[in-house]
């Protein structure tokens, strides 16, 4: 499992995270998976050696609110500690990805004044086939960037990053 993305992608996510500070930012990562583990029939074969290539970022609004908190049985009403992606935004990204023969391969979000380490809430709500990239923002400035994937025991493990100068579309 490796996530390939460009320095521009990281810069864009950092900028997004700083812009929304002290709230969490969030967005989707569109791209391709080498060794084709995005096909429906093949999704069960967890491709440990798969390489996920981010081609497009899809920043969205953090739509966490009281209603989402209630629906998810989460006590935190604050966007400073939680994020949610509205179904409208997800649908738009799905359509965009399909039209370009891409897939949603991951989600990024920020942790304001916290390390770039998944929280228990992140773990609880995470999906197996996505990469989860987290940006730590300390006092409004980005400090670290890590990516994570769930293992077979539903625990997050660091996902190796390969940062390229550019990604060819």
């Amino acid at each position: 499992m490796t996530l390939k993305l460009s320095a521009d992608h990281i810069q864009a996510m950092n900028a997004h995270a700083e812009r929304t500070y002290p709230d969490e930012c969030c967005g989707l990562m569109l791209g391709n998976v080498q060794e084709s583990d995005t096909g429906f029939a093949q999704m069960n074969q967890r491709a440990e050696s798969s390489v996920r290539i981010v081609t497009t970022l899809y920043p969205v609004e953090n739509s966490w609110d009281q209603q989402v908190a209630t629906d998810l049985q989460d006590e935190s009403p604050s966007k400073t500690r939680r994020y949610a992606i509205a179904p409208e935004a997800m649908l738009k990204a799905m359509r965009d990805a399909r039209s370009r023969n891409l897939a949603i391969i991951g989600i990024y979000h920020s942790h304001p004044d916290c390390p770039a380490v998944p929280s228990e809430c992140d773990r609880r709500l995470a999906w197996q086939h996505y990469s989860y990239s987290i940006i730590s923002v300390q006092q409004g400035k980005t400090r670290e960037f890590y990516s994570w994937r769930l293992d077979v025991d539903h625990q997050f493990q660091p996902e190796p990053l390969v940062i390229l100068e550019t990604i060819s579309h």
Partner: protein
Amino acid sequence: MTDSAPLLKVENVYAGYVKDLDILQGVNFRIYPGELVAVIGPNGAGKSTLAKTIFGLLTPRMGSMVFAGKSIVGLKADEIVQQGMGYVPQISNVFRSLTVEENLEMGAFVLNQPIQPLKDEIFTRFPKLAERRNQRAGTLSGGERQMLAMGRALMLKPKLLLLDEPSAALSPLLVDSVFEQIREINRTGTAIALVEQNARRALEMADRGYVLEAGRDRFEGRGIDLLNDPKVGELYLGATKR
């Protein structure tokens, strides 16, 4: 039907929401390809907990669950969907702010193929949804919303559909309509596990049924046999037969 291998085999499963407090206490459940199986029982018997556990929303503390030949213990819902199981929860089962058509599209989120033919199939099966395709799900009636939730789950053509109390809070007329749709879905070959409070209606329609009590499967048999079983009748169906 029972000569073939079970599509889903749940054995001796213990699970609950809180540590050291199991709602399911050694429950067993089987469903064969194409079957319609009702799960009934009093409030608190563990019916919905069983559905949630099968679908990976709760992790069993003990026991085995094999679906389509593979263990699904420890898998999360998104992985179980990919194995070919659909689940329609009792509440919060549609995206209220999205239209009917958009909800169906969301149901096919993992597919990397054209989804229009799938939507067309659902609209053919549920003409009411076709009429309302551009209407926001939050404005649908309870019965229509239930149909949409089932339609969305069917977008991935599951081998097994788990329905958690689809008749809850519906008027009797709508219950008839929803149950008829369930029967139709089953006729096309999709196995259905129907968790229902409306025990009599569920057993009338089911090939087989399970009666849960205190987290265990207390009775199991053909739907019609359970309906006529005086012990089941006394306990769960009310004294008077319709």
